[in-house]
């Protein structure tokens, strides 16, 4: 691009922008969005992304059902969400416009591929007349760009068939947006060369389309100026942009190294969890064994078998698979073996919304098994936090010899954010504490091994994988005698064992950090959440504070058991707000556990919470709280 000159008018500086690329599922919008994200990350912006795609691989072209979108929020300061609503929408066809226009605030910019707005596509999207001419978009700044024809023209001399040439139009859009937001050009040109190495014609066509888009922005005099979002001030260090699923996969490898336990993943493909399997299956040099089972049950069964053999047994799934794994989780609870179940939640019930996010499996994770069957629950709060949360879940599973459920969700799984890379040595070390010899003396003086003789502090039983002579033992799903582990049917022993299993899990509360509360100046309202709502809640809290009002925020990583001080924390506040992407599951648990009048704020529309709705809800609660205080004569002088 030696002939490219910087716009004589210097770019207009802005502090942040939210861009949504939208088109047909076959249009390559995820790729364009992903590449824009990477160049922004390399440029030094803080960012967050939100891919939003249909469950169908290729829904009928041009229809609303087939619209695939990728939203990216870039900024020159720290941000925590992919943005409530786009400032810029790139719409590759009428359906993409129609599906996304409702999300746009007044004054937003719309860039459409005008070539796609023909009668046929308009009809497919349900438009009687073109929205480009009927004044329905008057609240927005609309740029009509004939992307298809310029793209086709750009590669004409290469001899690419028009139909193939047209497929590069996502790179045209990427080029145009890259100009508009002053992204460096060369890295993307090089990246295209690498990605399409060996496919000369496609490589060249894509590079030309990308440059054509860039030049179009520069020379068409359509746009008043370009914009620039300066790099954000981030803590010094090395960064990578990770999805939650990648972070979880890397967390598993880290936990395997830090525990010295070989990693075994038994799983069955399911959206949106499969990428953890894909990522792990690439890294066999870490001794990773991945097993694509015949079904969800076999996935967790094999993981439990591996755990019996002394491996770090892991299974990954989403809601429908979690249903099927319940029985095996019950066995793992009875066997008291370490096992990690990662549930990447999606909209339910049943098949529900496979590609849309929801956090409605909390009560299932908590209670979804027959009998008294408690399991620890850990939840990740951001894409990169999936790494730490995974290691923490493994730590608990191994130390307490118990299955642990780690909750992620579709938004975390596919969303990305810059992540400061950790040093392996700084990560928690996990001691598997494998049994080494007999632990009991029989009445006749012979030494023996009792598989259910518990550690006095943790109440965990010894873990003795096959291979050690003298430690042979049999375990199973039948109730076991305290200590010896022999089959026992008597009521008193069952009562004791049931209470021991419960006490073991409850006792983990003493082994996790206290509730982290962000409350600088003594607020009366606490907003408490869990999982992927962290970013939206934090953004809402910031906005409220920017108005000079006080609000506290807490976000739970441990859902079972809760941190030991949680009850006291909740009682410090006059009002407690619990925003969730379900119909009020954490709020129910908090009310049941602490008799606190938690107010539930819920949404189940397949998309993450918005900072703006958080702000509104918190403001409302602060107002109510003030009313209550004046009504009861209580001061707010805390």
């Amino acid at each position, binding site marked *: 691009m030696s002939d490219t000159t910087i716009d004589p008018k210097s770019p207009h500086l802005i502090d942040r922008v939210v861009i949504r690329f939208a088109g047909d599922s076959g249009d390559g919008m995820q790729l364009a969005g992903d590449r824009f994200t990477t160049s922004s990350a390399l440029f030094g912006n803080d960012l967050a992304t939100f891919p939003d795609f249909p469950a169908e691989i290729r829904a009928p072209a041009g229809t609303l059902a087939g619209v695939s979108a990728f939203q990216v929020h870039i900024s020159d300061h720290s941000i925590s969400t992919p943005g409530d609503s786009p400032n810029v929408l790139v719409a590759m066809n009428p359906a993409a416009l129609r599906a996304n226009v409702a999300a746009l605030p007044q004054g937003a910019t719309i860039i459409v591929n005008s070539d796609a707005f023909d009668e046929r596509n308009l009809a497919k999207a349900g438009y009687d007349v073109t929205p480009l001419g009927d004044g329905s978009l008057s609240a927005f700044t609309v740029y009509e760009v004939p992307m298809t024809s310029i793209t086709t023209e750009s590669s004409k001399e290469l001899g690419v068939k028009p139909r193939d040439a047209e497929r590069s139009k996502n790179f045209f859009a990427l080029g145009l947006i890259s100009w508009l937001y002053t992204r460096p050009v060369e890295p993307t040109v090089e990246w295209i060369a690498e990605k399409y190495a060996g496919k000369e014609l496609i490589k060249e066509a894509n590079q030309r389309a990308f440059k054509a888009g860039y030049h179009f922005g520069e020379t068409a005099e359509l746009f008043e100026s370009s914009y620039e979002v300066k790099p954000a001030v981030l803590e010094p260090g090395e*960064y990578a942009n990770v999805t939650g699923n990648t972070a979880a996969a890397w967390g598993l490898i880290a936990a395997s190294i830090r525990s010295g336990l070989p990693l075994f993943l038994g799983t069955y493909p399911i959206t949106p969890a499969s990428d953890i399997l894909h990522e792990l299956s690439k890294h*066999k*040099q870490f001794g990773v064994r991945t097993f694509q089972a015949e079904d969800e*049950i*076999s996935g967790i069964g*094999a993981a439990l078998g591996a755990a019996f053999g002394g491996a770090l047994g892991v299974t990954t799934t989403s809601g429908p698979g979690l249903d099927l794994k319940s029985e*095996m989780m019950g066995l793992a609870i009875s*066997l008291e073996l370490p096992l990690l179940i990662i549930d990447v939640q999606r909209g339910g019930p049943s098949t529900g919304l496979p590609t849309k996010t929801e956090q409605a499996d909390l009560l299932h994770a908590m209670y979804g098994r027959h009998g008294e069957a408690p399991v620890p629950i850990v939840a990740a709060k951001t894409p990169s936090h999936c790494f730490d949360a995974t290691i923490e879940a493994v730590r608990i599973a191994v130390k307490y010899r118990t299955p642990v459920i780690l909750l992620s969700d579709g938004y975390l799984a596919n969303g990305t954010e810059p992540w400061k890379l950790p040093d392996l040595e700084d990560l928690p070390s996990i001691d598997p504490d494998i049994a080494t010899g007999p632990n009991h003396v029989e009445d006749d003086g012979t030494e023996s091994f009792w598989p259910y003789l518990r550690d006095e502090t943790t109440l965990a039983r010894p873990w003795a994988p096959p291979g050690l002579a003298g430690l042979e033992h049999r375990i199973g799903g039948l109730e076991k005698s305290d200590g010896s582990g022999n089959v026992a049917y008597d009521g008193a022993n069952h009562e004791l064992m049931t209470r021991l299993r419960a006490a073991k899990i409850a006792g983990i509360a003493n082994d996790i950090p206290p509730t982290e509360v962000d409350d600088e100046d003594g607020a009366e309202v606490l907003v408490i959440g869990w999982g992927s709502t962290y970013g939206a809640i934090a953004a809402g809290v910031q906005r409220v504070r920017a108005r000079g009002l006080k609000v506290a925020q807490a976000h739970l990583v441990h859902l079972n058991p809760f941190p030991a001080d949680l009850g006291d924390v909740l009682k410090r506040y006059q009002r407690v707000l619990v925003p969730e992407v379900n119909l009020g599951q954490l709020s129910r648990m908090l009310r049941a556990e602490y008799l606190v009048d938690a107010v539930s704020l819920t949404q189940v529309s397949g998309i993450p919470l918005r900072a703006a709705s958080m702000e509104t809800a918190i403001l409302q609660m602060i107002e109510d709280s003030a009313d209550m205080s004046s009504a009861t004569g209580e001061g707010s002088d805390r």
Partner: protein
Amino acid sequence: MTDVSESVPVALTTRKDWSSDQEVRWCPGCGDYSILSAVQTLMPDLGVSRESTVFLSGIGCAARFPYYMNTYGMHSIHGRAPAIATGLAATRPDLDVWVVTGDGDALSIGGNHLIHALRRNVNITILLFNNQIYGLTKGQYSPTSEVAKVTKSTPFGSLEQPFNPLSLALGAEAGFVARTHDMDRKHMMETFRRAHAHKGASFVEIYQNCNVFNDGAFEKITGKDNRADMLIPLVHGEAIRFGSEGQFGVAMNRDGSVEVVEVATVGEDALLVHDEHLENPGLSFQLSRLSRGPYEPTPIGVFRDVDHEEYGQQMTEQIDAATERRGPGDFAALLRSGSSWTVS
């Protein structure tokens, strides 16, 4: 990984060493006792150690088996033992993993896991105790019960065509497939020894009498006086021949099916010579269809014994190859495998 059981000298054991201290709680007269006895008697001869031996089971009468073996063991949940065994065998190629199951456990609730464990050739030895009835739930028909079987849950007779366990295993292309019965300890021990020696998935059907809910189900063929004329011993490399006088044999028809013939009528040369090692499971499949039920002459012994690389070994080889190619896992490099950047 090397086979520990071969590289470390194994201490001599007796049958008693392999019996746990738990009281055996099957019904008096149950066929399971003789199977347990055959296994416990065989173990000292196999040259394996107790600590490297694992018995896994699902649910059912047969599934209590691991409690009675003084080895490592797990009594798991209904039908899932092959899945659990897959994870164990794939991560611990040094272990001998046995799966003890029944007709309901393996062929009804656990059918899916069974066929996939066989297909993958996981290094496990599966002993299927087939008594053609649900015993632990007190007498309902099972997936191997004969059509029209009258049971508690089928007072007007069962409507279902039974599974032929060997046909199923051969259909899944199991490498080792055999049948034995609970009335012949020597035959059981020899069959189990062969199954154990086979690397990869081994499948053994054991006709087992449930004297409470389905007594005498196999009497017509396994009864002492009936065996000679009703059991067809399969011996590798030999003509398939049976009968008190050796008067019967098995021959192949023009359509590829097999049938029982009288030697005097067809002549010795017409008899089928048994070959366990045929790569194509077709002929052994035909042999598995020879008898329609335990009232007709029925082949016993090893139907198929074909070597393929077992699953866990292949997994290990992939790990070794990846490590060879890329060097041992470097975590810092993994974190930087995408595009990373430095903020100073």
